[in-house]
Every structure is written in C-alpha cells, then in structure tokens.
C-alpha cells in the first residue's frame, strides 16, 4: 500500500474513479489513526504525552491500494474534492427520485 501526500492521493483517486466508470468498484475507507504502533502509543500514554490523531484514508479498486493521512486543516479541501469528483458525477448517473419521475411523466402525457 502506498502512503501519499494529499494532492497526489486525490489525483490518483480521481484517475481511479475515471478508470472504473465502465466497470468495477472503488472503495474509500476512513479511519481514525495516530499512525503509530500500539507499543509506541502505550509508551506515550504512560509518559503522559498527547497523541495526535489524524484521519487515515485508504482507497482501492480491487487491484491497487493508495492511502493518505489528513489533519484537520485539510479536511475542507477533501470535502470539496468529494463533492466535485464523486458526488456530482454520481448524481448524474444515479436515479432521480420516483416523485420527480412521476411529475415528469405526467407533464409529458399532457
């Protein structure tokens, strides 16, 4: 698994979504992580040190896996990315609600 910086990760994830438009799935996993082993974390706890947690993001298309870790200051960038790369194209593909479809059908029949 490749650990990338945020911008290369987003570029790679965007191309992963583009390559899977015809076939296949993309999985994106979010998990809270300190990126430190349990031993190190326990030592920090006993020493009274504060552990810094980040949001670990992993993405895979079943063949290749990429990952990055995000701190709070980059969360807004990530949120905008999800809107532009995932939500807007997916909304064009996904179904419109049945109530809207009925209204469209009724207006066509008239």
């Amino acid at each position, binding site marked *: 698994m490749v650990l990338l910086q945020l911008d290369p990760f987003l570029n790679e994830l965007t191309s992963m*979504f583009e390559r*899977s*438009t*015809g*076939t*296949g*799935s*993309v*999985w*994106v*996993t*979010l*998990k*809270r992580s300190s990126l430190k082993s349990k031993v190190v974390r326990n030592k920090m706890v006993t020493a009274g040190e504060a552990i810094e*947690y*980040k*949001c670990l993001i992993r993405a895979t298309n079943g063949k290749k896996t990429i990952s990055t870790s*995000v*701190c*709070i200051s980059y*969360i807004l960038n*990530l*949120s905008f990315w*999800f*809107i532009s790369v*995932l*939500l807007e*194209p*997916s*909304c*064009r*593909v*996904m*179904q*419109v*609600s049945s109530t809207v479809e009925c209204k469209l059908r009724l207006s066509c029949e008239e």
Partner: protein
Amino acid sequence: MVYITSWDEFVERSVQLFRADPDSTRYVMKYRHCDGKLVLKVTDNRECLKFKTDQAQEAKKMEKLNNIFFTLMARGPEVDLSEVTGKEQTDVQPTKRGRGRKQ
C-alpha cells in the same frame, strides 16, 4: 451485516458506534459507477451498519456524513458536531412569508 433503510437512523447509529470505540470504527464507501450504486458501511469489527442507495438525493446527503466523520476522526469523538451540522442549517433558506389571505 445490517442494511438500514432510514438515512437519519443510519447517521445517528454510526456516530454512536464511532463514539463508543473510535479506534476500531471505520467508515467505508463503495461506489459502482456502472450501476450507479453507493453503499456506505460503518463497522467496529463487532457491529456493522450498512446503507445502500441508487438515489441522487441520498448521495448528496453523504456529503454531510463525510464532514461529520472527517471532523470526528481528526478532532476526536468528543467534538461538538453542531459546528458541522450548524453550517447546513444556516444554508437552508428561510421560508417566505407571503400575504396570507384572510378568511
């Protein structure tokens, strides 16, 4: 694995699951563009909550859940989520008060 039909119930139970065990809980999104299907899963390796949809409106709701989880994971389980949800409340346009017809 349990598929939850209500979006609000899925969000509430997911946040509770995360707050109960923030180190084990993960949030997974699976998207198939060829089918137009989105599946969301929140699990702590003991309990699993899933939500699936092919509706565009519910995909848009996912944006709110993403922001909630980004904030919870980066700032911690004790963070006040009204900062995340409160912004959306201000985005809602106030209902127009038209002239009411006196009957």
